[in-house]
């Protein structure tokens, strides 16, 4: 059974008559012990979906889902109590996630105190061990440091250590490398990969960066305008995308064409969050759209390796 099983998640804000559709129909299935990418451009609902998993949505949000399960538990009921115990979060900006006026040691200890119930001296040993596990060379010195004395990459490692300290087995990482340099970001991703293997973690990697997906994700889900449009194993997804949006997204990357050629850009705009979408959300911008695409919800298709929602008949070749 998958660790996370979401079907038909919808999240709305605002008035009942004119709601803002932050998330319209997200399906997400994450296997234990894997890193799963949640890919999409801004406004696609990827961060909001992550917040829903964490139970961090504002009270004004109206959430509905056909299934919204974590480890068999209905998250719509128990999200609040799982956050900080089973589910932890790593955010984009590690500097903002750490308190600038407290030493790292104190901040690690605070987390351990509320989660482990160990006596003080043992907590210190555990903190050191966790920092070492995140690849920090001199945990003792880090414990005595203030956040600003550490580089961005080191701060992000501390944040990961804190996530581990909560004892969580599922980590939601929201653009964890966007604020970091490429080489530092690559190291952080390598660390997450290692931790997933060593500690039987599961990670949801929210990102807009295909390089991040390629670098560390076992599988991924592509969102467009609050819909899941395609999901599958990373290699399948990147090498043989099935949904026109995924194809267009990959073709828009600067290394997708030979130098000097024009990049394939996607014309038009994402639909407004107020819009009512009858058919396929991508239809207005899709190069292969047919009349049916604008009228009816596209069927779910599955070729064994990955699944997608599209009216186009898959052709094998």
């Amino acid at each position, binding site marked *: 059974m998958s660790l996370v099983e979401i079907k038909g998640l919808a999240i709305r804000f605002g008035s009942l008559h004119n709601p803002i559709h932050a998330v319209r129909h997200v399906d997400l299935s994450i296997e234990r012990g894997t890193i799963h990418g949640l890919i999409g451009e801004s406004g696609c609902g990827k961060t909001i979906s992550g917040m829903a998993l964490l139970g961090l949505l504002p009270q004004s949000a109206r959430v509905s889902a056909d299934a919204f399960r974590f480890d068999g538990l209905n998250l719509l009921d128990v999200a609040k109590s799982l956050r900080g115990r089973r589910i932890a979060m790593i955010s984009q900006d590690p500097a903002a996630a750490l308190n600038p006026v407290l030493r790292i040691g104190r901040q690690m200890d605070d987390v351990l105190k509320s989660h482990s119930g160990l006596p003080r001296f043992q907590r210190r040993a555990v903190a050191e061990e966790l920092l070492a596990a995140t690849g920090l060379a001199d945990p003792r010195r880090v414990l005595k440091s203030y956040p600003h004395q550490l580089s961005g990459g080191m701060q992000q490692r501390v944040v990961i250590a804190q996530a581990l300290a909560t004892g969580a087995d599922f980590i939601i990482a929201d653009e964890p490398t966007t604020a970091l*340099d490429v080489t530092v970001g690559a190291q952080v991703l390598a660390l997450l990969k290692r931790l997933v293997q060593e500690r039987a973690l599961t990670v949801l990697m929210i990102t807009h960066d*295909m390089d991040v997906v390629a670098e560390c994700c076992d599988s991924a889900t592509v969102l467009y305008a609050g819909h899941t449009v395609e999901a599958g194993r990373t290699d399948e997804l990147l090498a043989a995308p099935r949904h026109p949006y995924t194809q267009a997204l990959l073709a828009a990357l*600067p290394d997708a064409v030979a130098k000097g050629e024009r990049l394939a850009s996607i014309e038009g705009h994402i639909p407004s969050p107020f819009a009512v979408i009858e058919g396929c959300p991508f239809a207005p911008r899709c190069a292969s759209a047919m009349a049916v695409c604008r009228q009816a919800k596209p069927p779910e298709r599955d070729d064994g390796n990955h699944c997608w929602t599209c009216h186009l008949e898959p052709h094998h070749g």
Partner: protein
Amino acid sequence: MDEPLLQIRDLVVRYRRTGLFSAPPPPAVNAVSLALATGSTLGLVGESGSGKSSLLRAILRLVPVESGTIRLDGDDWLALPEQRLRERRRAIGVVAQNPFLSLSPRLTIAEILAEPMTAQGRVPAEELRLRAAEMLERCGLPGTFLSRRARELSGGQAQRVAIARALVLQPKLLILDEPTSALDISVQAQILNLLEDLKRELGLSMLFVTHNLKVVRHVSDTHVVMRGGRIIEAGSTEQISSAPAEEYTRQLMGYGRNPTGAEVASARRG
């Protein structure tokens, strides 16, 4: 061969020491030399702390230079007196990373586009509006955007406004400081295409600063890789991408997915 549009020789930038007794910090830019030929694009690649921002700021004369020379469009750029510099600044247009920060939140797009022109002297209001609208359309936005404000635009639209502002005085050199790294992938593709068109139509030379080697590989003719204030690798883009000499460059390039264009095309055909 013609003189390059921009020629930098042995440039050293060093910031002031922080305390009275502290040792002077190492140079942020250390003996950097580079040349940008007229009509070409030079990619400048580096991570934070590489000195690429300091180099940019030195070219824009926002930080004092310790030694070295910059020749720009025939001028001994660093020796220009303040008054002359203000006029000659029109030779450079600058586009920053985040358009929402680099466009004033208080002004309308018309006012934003007029600012470089009025800074160069009195221009009749009619002409201001005309030229602003013309440049905006060149950058792919209708003239109706003139009365809007930056926060009402999407990231891609705002970046188009920033590009229009940089080009409104018809500069010879366009400096782009991570112009697409705050944008979505599909928007990045639009902006890169736009820059390519503008370069061809207006005969621009570009200095393209980024940490993203894939973007550089797409846009630039030559590029340099900076690290620790020095240029560690320089050459034509083909040469560096096919056979990087430095391990560091290889690291930067080996990251993420690396399909060739052909692979993607075949994948799309399914």
